[in-house]
């Protein structure tokens, strides 16, 4: 009898131990090394904000996490990455970098070790080693969405869009609710010119995070590119209703109204943004410049447009103002200021590489060639620009503008069929844009579809 009881007891204990082991094994491993639950909660909140692209909020949470646990290396890394390089923060960043250099990696999770080691590699200007560290980690942990996302971002940054899209789709398989992946896939679909897919991806993105501003903004940006201005406005306003300080949506609303040919409304948006403190002051200033230059050009006051754009170009130094000034110069002739600025830009950015900036340089150089009476040269630069400037990332209007400019250059170069094909490609995307764009010379105006 006793023997049986003992056997039964042993059996029960064995089962309990086994169940405990299984339960323990089934628990998700700790993602971030910290002994402070509050610090961990702050990190998770920061991750959430980061996913929503509320980077300022995210930075604040990371800093709070660091206050709670000064040894939390992941928070250190994030604070370094997210902190704007402004006075007052450089010292903090420098201190954190030093701490990261000397941090003991022994107690960290493999993911944290990977992050710190690759950070150190980049500090040492060894991006290849940083990539190797990531690759090694991914070989061990292929399903860690965090690491996968880093790889996706690298593809993205390298303008390696095919692998980037595959990578982000893989990320959505690992975590269907990794909303930033949806956002990126939407933009990548735009790059492929698959606007229906892009719209679907952005709709999914919006479905997943309707309380965030960026999904609405991304969808609105696509809709604006496609000429569905009313729908786009609803999305921008929905984004601002969610978060009135989401500046990209204010800026997109300004652009939207300019495309509609309603500079007054655009100006109203700028005013509202200012009142809502929706954008930083520099952004607001830029928007005012855009409105001023665009409205002058839209009214055919090319000299005024040129003047406004040149002034803003000198004040803000943004490529958009350079391009506007150049566009006005197509009507009134090139100015020395503009020529010098383009040269300076080309020298600073260069013309190689598949980056938006180089695309802008080619665009500027193409317009310069037109001003110089070199249409074939312009065509080359404008084609290069078209390859580099994406539909997304706030560049859609610029890309369409560049294509119409390319069509103008082709006509100037005596290649009207090619010009018409280019115009047709724009028309298929946004008929209104082709019909209403008045900033370009007359010969670039488009026939109605038919």
């Amino acid at each position, binding site marked *: 009898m006793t023997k049986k009881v003992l056997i039964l007891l042993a059996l029960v204990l064995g089962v309990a131990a086994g169940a405990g082991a299984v339960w323990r094994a089934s628990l998700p491993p700790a993602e971030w090394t910290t002994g402070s639950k509050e610090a961990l909660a702050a990190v998770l909140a920061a991750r959430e904000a980061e996913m929503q692209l509320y980077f300022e909020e995210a930075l604040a949470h990371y800093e709070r996490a660091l206050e709670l646990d000064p040894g939390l290396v992941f928070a250190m890394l994030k604070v370094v990455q997210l902190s704007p390089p402004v006075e007052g923060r450089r010292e903090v960043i420098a201190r954190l970098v030093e701490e990261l250099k000397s941090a003991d990696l022994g107690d960290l999770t493999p993911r944290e070790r990977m992050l710190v080691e690759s950070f150190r590699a980049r500090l040492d200007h060894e991006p290849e080693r940083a990539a190797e560290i990531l690759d090694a980690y991914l070989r061990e942990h292929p399903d860690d969405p965090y690491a996968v996302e880093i790889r996706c971002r690298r593809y993205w940054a390298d303008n390696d869009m095919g692998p980037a899209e595959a990578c982000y789709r893989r990320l*959505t398989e690992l975590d269907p*609710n990794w909303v930033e992946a949806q956002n990126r896939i939407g933009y990548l679909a735009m790059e492929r010119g698959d606007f229906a897919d892009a719209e679907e991806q952005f*709709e999914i993105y919006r*479905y997943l*995070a*309707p309380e965030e501003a960026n999904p609405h903004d991304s969808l609105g940006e696509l809709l604006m590119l496609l000429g569905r201005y009313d729908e786009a406005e609803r999305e921008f306003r929905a984004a601002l209703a969610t978060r009135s300080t989401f500046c990209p949506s204010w800026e997109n609303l300004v652009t939207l109204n300019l495309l509609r040919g309603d500079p007054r409304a655009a100006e109203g948006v700028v005013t509202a943004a200012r009142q809502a403190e929706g954008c930083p002051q520099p952004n607001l200033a830029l928007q005012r410049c855009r409105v001023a230059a665009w409205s002058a050009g839209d009214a055919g006051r090319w000299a005024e447009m040129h003047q406004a754009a040149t002034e803003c170009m000198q004040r803000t130094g943004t490529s958009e103002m350079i391009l506007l000034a150049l566009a006005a110069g197509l009507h009134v002739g090139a100015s020395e200021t503009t020529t010098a600025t383009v040269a300076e830009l080309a020298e600073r950015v260069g013309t190689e590489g598949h980056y938006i900036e180089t695309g802008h340089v080619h665009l500027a150089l193409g317009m310069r060639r037109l001003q110089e009476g070199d249409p074939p040269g312009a065509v080359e630069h404008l084609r290069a620009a078209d390859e580099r400037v994406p539909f997304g990332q706030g560049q859609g209007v610029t890309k369409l503008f560049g294509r119409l400019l390319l069509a103008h250059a082709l006509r100037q170069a005596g290649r009207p069929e090619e010009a018409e094909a280019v115009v047709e490609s724009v028309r298929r995307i946004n008929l209104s844009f082709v019909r209403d764009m008045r900033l370009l010379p007359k010969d670039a105006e488009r026939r109605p579809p038919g």
Partner: protein
Amino acid sequence: MTPNRPPTALLVLGFAAFLLAALSIVDMYLPRPYDGVVLTETPGSLRVQSVVPDSGADRAGIAAGDRIVGIGRELLRSKAQGAEALNDLEIGATAAYLVRRADGGELEEVAVELGRRQIGGTSYLYACLLGFSFFFIGLFVLLHQPRLRAGHVFFLLCCLFLVFLVCRLRPASYSAVDAFVLRTGTLALVLLPASFLHFFLIFPRPVWDGRLGETFGALRNRRTWATLLGVVYLVPALVFVYGVWGVQGLGRVGRSISGAPAGSWWVLALYMVVGLLLLAANWAHLPASRERRGAAIVLLGSIVGLVPFLVLAVGFPSFFQTEQFIFYGVVPLAAIPLTFAYAIFRFQLLNVRVILRKSLLYTATTAVVTLVYALGIASFNALFQGTGLARSPYFPLLFALAIVLLFEPLRRRIQGPMDRFFFAERARLQRAMVELGEALTGQQDPAQLVRDLVEVLPRLLGLRFAALFVAQDDRFVRAAGSPARPQDGRALDRPPPPGTAAELPAEIVVPEPLLEHLAGRTLARLDDLDLLRLRSPAVDRLASTLAEAGVDAVGLLASSRRRLGLVLLSPKLSQVTLEAEELDLLRGLLHQASIALETGRLLEERARRAELERDLEIAAAIQASLLPRRLDLGPGWRVAAACRPARHVGGDFYSILPGPALLYGDVSGKAVSGALMMMAASEVFHSLALANRSPEDLFDLANRRLYELGERSFVAVGYFSPNGAGEGSTGPEGHLTYLLAGQPSPLLRHGDGRVDELPFPEHRLPLGALRTGGYRPLAVRLETGDLLLAYSDGVVEAQGPDGEPFGQDRLETLLAATPGDPQSVVEAVLAQLDRFTHGELPYDDVTLLAIGRSRPAEIHTP
């Protein structure tokens, strides 16, 4: 011995199927948020198969064909994620759904209000009821026929129908339970066609049995049968595997119906069609009418149930790509369990007896009538609500009156059809048995009765055969019924083992314990003799022999006087064994047959006796005609004689021999044997007397002749002759020569009334007693007025009512007191004997011979 309970594996399977179905339904009532979306079973797909009416999804505009992309702001890759997403929400909450529309494929976000899970629409409720109907009918059959192979397969089939209907048609949501239940339902879909076909291969009779055996005879081989079953069960599985994985592996898109490969549905359809054809062929060849009627009902129900199912659930989805009619294909499936239940009830299908008490039925009838009235009142109230009629105080009174007047007649009217519907077969059998009983009772010819029993009983009860053995001494000899067991008398669901004996024995010695057992019960099934078989090895041997010969029941025909016969009954042609009620009817019938048989025998004996009587009368007449009309001893002699046999014919006689001489005799034995012996003796004497006038020679020769007859029959003879002892000699006047062989001494009444006995000769043994003779005659002188009275022993041995013999003294007294001639004396003695015996037949033949001395002309004959 096979245990009298169902196979454990089958019970476990049934329990598991029932548990799964029941828990599946219970699960649907658990308080979980539910959107009303019914998903297809396609792995990884969240395509909406249908939407429960008035559910949150229905109100949100989600429709069949849509795909659920996200729930509660979470994207779904699987149903499990959908279940998780729903579990995070609460009943009553409104969840954002991302839906890809079926038309155009656009994404749309809709708000779905989550409610409690419902069991689904009416259609699923119907499917559940149907599934459980199948299950309980199958279970009922299994419990009533635990050893019947067809019952096993039927139960399996019903379990699969249960799982198919409850689980496969479950309005599946996202949960793992849904997935599990659906997969089990799909498994049922794989097994269902095979078990369906399997069932109709052995139902209502195995296809190799009976007349279909010519076509399917090869299946009697166990290996062939096992191979066929293996193929039957394997094909649907292979088709399913190919449909699910094979097609995917080949990179093709397999068409599916309701989430299962279309190929599996087509296999189901094919098997069902083949099953129906088998059933139809089987039905056409069934020998028993009752079984045929039952099978016809099932065939009809199967056709009604399956054809719409095949068309709407298999054909339409395959050819028109629409599954919206599947439910309408499922609806008529109810005809299958309903017709099975009806056939079981009405025709004891699958050998299942249902005892339904009439009182219960009448209670149900009354309840139905009451319900009809209640509905009538409710309808009337609703119809005239608010009107003056409804408010009238006479309104309830009128209804009460209507109920009083109409209730009972209506109930009686309904009862009739109910009786006819439920008890028609039983009533028909009872009526037929009563008619047969009456026919048997009126049958006076035992041979015809025997024929009736062995011919009518099998037809009436659907037996393979019946045989009747008639009692002869200590055994029973086959009198009617086929000696060989019919060819279709095999076990019903498997081929018979080779070398099975099939002969009924020609005669049976029934052990006494069995006879005593049967005497108390009249009829017993061999299966019920287990205890008796254990007690008596002889009974066990006999029961084994009979069972081997295909006998199912044994009945005894007996009267209070004797055992008359034995009735052997085979099992029924159908798979139905004799039920208790039939056995009771049979007992009554056998009882009636016993009476009829006994009556027949008695009548036969009576007829034989009457014939004998008639023969005897003729014999008596013949015998009487043999007695001489005239007895003439010559001048001076007066003779009177009388012979009264104890029965029609007797052993006494008198005769006149050439000489002349008077001879009277009494042979041992009476009636026919006595008469024959008497005739033989008379003939012997007459033939010998022609050549031998000497009485001693005559007696010696007659003695030898009679002795040689060898029958040890003796003949007592008396001889009187007025001549001398030698041939041709004539004695002195008034002298008589006499010889006595075994006869009593004659009495001599003298003229003065004195009576003396004549002296006995020295040798007086009856003739035929000894080989040697040695008879010597004596002589006696009769004066005028003397009278000699010779008589047989029947005279003095005649008994009065109290058993007192008449006696010689009484005879002597009577002779002394009776003056007159011989005739008067003979008549007086006979009259006195009649008085003495009160007119009863004498115990023995009575012969009187009176001889008187007178003038030569006075001669009398009797």
